[in-house]
């Protein structure tokens, strides 16, 4: 994986020193909160419901064991012994003291991590397919390109004050495991005539106005893809609205201009930038690529002895095909029945770090679905890995089932939220696990957001739940039919909202309709798309 060079390290350390000075001046009263707030936000420090919250970037979701151990140390030393993995492959610490924040950032810098650009109207953490470098179906490892984007976008002076925040995802397969088309820019690596290039989808997003990004350019030669990204950002920076926060994202610009007119603007800017020559030298990409060389895979058994039924269930649900036949990628569910989606204790982080060292070439991934992943596990090692996870309560065999719920922190932590998300996720996962129904339902992606900002991706859930404030009480809107995968679609609201008990009952009724109506091999989403909303509405509201 990528290691900082002296420029990277110097930049991060300089930022820590700068923030330490800013924090000191705030505590001494030389800066007001109005002056300090944008400075702390540039360093990922929010003020949430109960305390300051520090959001740490995990570039394209990749961590070494040493880095994960440092996150555990931060949790113990400066927080309350746990962290929360987010839907953009970051981690959040909920109880950071302002006076400790510079020390926490200094500790992070020792393992080449930071919280820069995890807030504010800038280019945020670059996210990526969590199976990058391991997936059997990818045409190239997207991480070097994500890293080049990270370096290009870090402290980019022109893009530090965009109209609104800006999120980029990179994938390299037909399957979309990064919600690519629900990002401001979604990049898919493709080949044309044997040459590698990038497809650019621009103007997707969730939030209060969800949109699926249209294709803006089918093929940008790979040695021009940073230039194309720069052209997109320049057009956005020039024409994006700054007068209305709710209309400031690039999706609104693309929608209002129309994809074709937007493309023309980008192409004109691209032609200009090609003349200027802003693309990083090819040698830089090659230097980065060298950091992502394959680990020393060993030959070994290509089959898995899954005699134990519990182990077999875990293998079936929690492992993913690897491009090396003797390996798989193994997903560690952070969704125990009744648990808090995405939360991990410091002890759990340390255990996963140790298991990664032992079984996965020292590498861990954070998934946008709020789980962890060991990308390269020898099939021969799977039983031992599973047993170690099971002993620690980390072997829930529930990936992509109705128990594997994405949920934002909601009103339990977030100052923007209108309703709690986590208690719903807890009750639903507990209920479906207890009845054994989740295994029968198969793939069913349920996503919960506690407000319209949609951090819980409810628009893209096969079943989505949005918490709203209804006259001071929590109320939940149910929606069906969303997907953030390659068959991307936006969910539709079923009808009037419910209280907490009501929405749980409604989810149950929706699953009953699916079980009654499904044809052989159909997922919940397939059945919904075939039969439409009406049978579900009838079951949910009919009686």
């Amino acid at each position, binding site marked *: 994986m990528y290691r900082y060079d002296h420029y990277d390290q110097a930049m991060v350390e300089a930022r820590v020193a700068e923030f330490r000075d800013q924090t000191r001046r705030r505590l001494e009263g030389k800066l007001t909160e109005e002056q300090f707030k944008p400075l702390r936000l540039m360093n990922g420090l929010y*003020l949430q419901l109960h305390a300051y919250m520090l959001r740490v970037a995990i570039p394209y979701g990749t961590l070494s064991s040493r880095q994960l151990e440092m996150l555990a140390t931060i949790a113990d030393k400066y927080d309350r012994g746990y962290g929360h993995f987010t839907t953009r492959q970051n981690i959040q610490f909920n109880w950071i*003291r302002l006076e400790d924040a510079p020390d926490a950032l200094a500790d992070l810098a020792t393992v080449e991590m930071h919280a820069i650009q995890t807030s504010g109207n800038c280019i945020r953490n670059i996210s990526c397919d969590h199976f990058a470098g391991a997936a059997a179906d990818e045409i190239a490892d997207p991480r070097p390109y994500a890293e080049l984007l990270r370096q290009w976008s870090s402290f980019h002076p022109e893009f530090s004050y965009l109209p609104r925040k800006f999120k980029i995802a990179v994938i390299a397969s037909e399957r979309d495991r990064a919600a690519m088309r629900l990002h401001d820019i979604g990049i898919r690596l493709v080949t044309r005539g044997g040459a590698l290039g990038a497809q650019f989808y621009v103007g997707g997003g969730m939030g209060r106005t969800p949109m699926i990004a249209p294709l803006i350019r089918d093929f940008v030669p790979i040695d021009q893809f940073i230039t194309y990204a720069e052209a997109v950002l320049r057009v956005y920076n020039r024409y994006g609205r700054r007068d209305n926060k709710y209309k400031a994202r690039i999706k609104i610009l693309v929608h209002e201009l129309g994809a074709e007119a937007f493309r023309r603007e980008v192409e004109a800017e691209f032609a200009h930038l090609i003349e200027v020559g802003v693309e990083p030298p090819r040698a830089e990409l090659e230097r980065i690529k060298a950091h992502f060389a394959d680990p020393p895979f060993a030959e070994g058994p290509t089959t898995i002895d899954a005699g134990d039924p519990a182990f077999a269930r875990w293998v079936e649900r929690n492992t993913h095909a690897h491009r090396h036949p003797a390996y798989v990628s193994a997903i560690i569910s952070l969704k125990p029945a009744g648990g808090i989606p995405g939360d991990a204790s410091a002890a759990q982080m340390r255990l996963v770090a140790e298991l990664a060292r032992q079984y996965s070439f020292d590498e861990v991934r954070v998934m946008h679905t709020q789980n962890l992943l060991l990308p390269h596990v020898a099939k021969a090692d799977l039983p031992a890995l599973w047993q170690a996870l099971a002993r620690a309560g980390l072997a829930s065999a529930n990936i992509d089932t109705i128990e594997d719920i994405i949920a934002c922190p909601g*009103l339990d932590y977030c100052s923007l939220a209108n309703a709690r998300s986590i208690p719903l996720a807890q009750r639903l996962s507990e209920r479906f696990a207890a009845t054994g129904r989740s295994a029968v339902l198969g793939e069913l992606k349920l996503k919960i957001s506690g407000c319209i900002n949609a951090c819980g991706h409810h628009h893209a859930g096969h079943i989505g739940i949005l918490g709203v404030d209804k006259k001071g009480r929590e109320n939940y809107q149910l929606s069906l039919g969303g997907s953030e995968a390659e068959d991307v679609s936006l969910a539709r609201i079923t009808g009037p909202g419910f209280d907490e008990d009501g929405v749980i009952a409604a989810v149950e009724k929706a699953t009953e309709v699916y079980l009654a109506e499904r044809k052989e091999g159909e997922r919940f989403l397939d059945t919904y798309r075939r039969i439409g909303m009406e049978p579900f509405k009838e079951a949910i509201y009919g009686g």
Partner: protein
Amino acid sequence: MRIITGNDLRTGAVVWWTGSGWSRFVDDAIDAGDAAEEIMAREEAARRVNVPYVCEASRDAQGHVRPAHIKDRVRALGPTVRRDLAVPTAARTGWDWVI
């Protein structure tokens, strides 16, 4: 009643105006009435509190101060999903008090 809340500048902890200082416990909050704005300006300038604001609340028969909005009740007790991290007053009010 109009009570004042905010976050401690150094720690970020939720605090409530008691009439003479800031407390972690919502039950210590007093009705600041028309003086709220002046108190907030003074206390923020002195860096004893960060981003203070006024919220409506009532005092129940048991003497507990109950903010009108659920968001402030969650702030008063802590995350409902991590009761082990709750502000100690939670034991007195019970979690049903939040919802």
